[in-house]
């Protein structure tokens, strides 16, 4: 009974956080709401018995991936969301469409033959069980994951690193060199300000 109450409470928190994420107009506020969603999902996993997944949800999603999100928001310098006519249309069409879609998914899931209900906390998910599944039953997917991670590493580095000759010592950008050369008589304060703006 306590499980059910906790589960429902955190489900409501998760949905409320998700709605707040959509309503908030500043990206950082949305990112903070996303942390609420991920944290309450972690509690839901825990209540279902998936302890390892719950811990990972906090460490990877609420921790690492949110840091990445915030860095990307800061990198893009995303300002307050603009409301145009298009967003109004999306609001009018989107809510009924989402409602119909959600009901459709629920209906299909309830009608599917192999779907049954499971008691809260009846599943198992301690690290030992995960280890057994990962290194025995799902060995190939596990090894393929490493290739996937490798692609992620290479993609990020190739996309984000500045263009320069291979394996050479990094050179200062030409802009900054030109700035330093042109600075000459200008006060030092001015130079740092412009350098900060250009970088």
């Amino acid at each position, binding site marked *: 009974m306590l499980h059910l109450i906790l589960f429902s409470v955190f489900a409501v928190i998760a949905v409320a956080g998700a709605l707040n994420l959509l309503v908030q107009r500043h990206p950082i506020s949305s990112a903070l709401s996303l942390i609420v969603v991920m944290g309450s999902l972690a509690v839901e996993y825990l*209540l279902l018995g998936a302890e390892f997944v719950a811990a990972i949800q906090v460490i990877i999603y609420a921790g690492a991936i949110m840091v990445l999100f915030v*860095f990307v928001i800061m990198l893009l*310098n995303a300002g307050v969301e603009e409301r145009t006519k298009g967003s109004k249309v999306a609001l009018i069409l989107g809510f009924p469409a989402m409602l119909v879609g959600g009901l459709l998914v629920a209906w299909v899931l309830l009608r599917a033959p192999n779907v049954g209900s499971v008691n809260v906390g009846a599943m198992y998910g301690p690290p030992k069980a995960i280890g057994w599944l*990962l*290194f025995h039953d799902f060995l190939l997917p596990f090894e393929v994951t490493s290739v996937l991670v490798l692609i992620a590493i290479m993609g*990020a580095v190739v996309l984000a690193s500045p263009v320069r000759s291979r394996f050479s010592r990094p050179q200062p950008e030409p802009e900054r060199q030109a700035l330093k050369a042109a600075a000459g008589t200008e006060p030092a304060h001015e130079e740092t300000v412009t350098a900060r703006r250009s970088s």
Partner: protein
Amino acid sequence: MPQNYVPIFLFMGVAFAIPAVTLVLFKLVRPENPHKTKLMPYECGITPLDDARGRYTVRFYIVAILFVVFDVETIFLLPWAVRFRWLGKFGLLEMGIFLGILIVGYIWIWKKGALEWV
């Protein structure tokens, strides 16, 4: 199983309660005298030139994504470590392949200079 986590829930409760209680308590106690100037960022008395939310360099993004990637790798080590004895040499080989592929990537980004703060 979740009964074991009651201390964590208690801990969470206390962690949320402390800032909430202090904020409410201090709101009641402190004198309130808001002024627009007080909210300005302090720059040695000089009026701020532009918005504090400047554009960050892409290097932060590289650092963050490399952190996420190797974080995921570390997470995969845990289920292996708790089953280490039981999985034996075969498990060691599996993990060796997994880490080997990632170490290739690590050496590549090292050589590429992505770990250096340019």
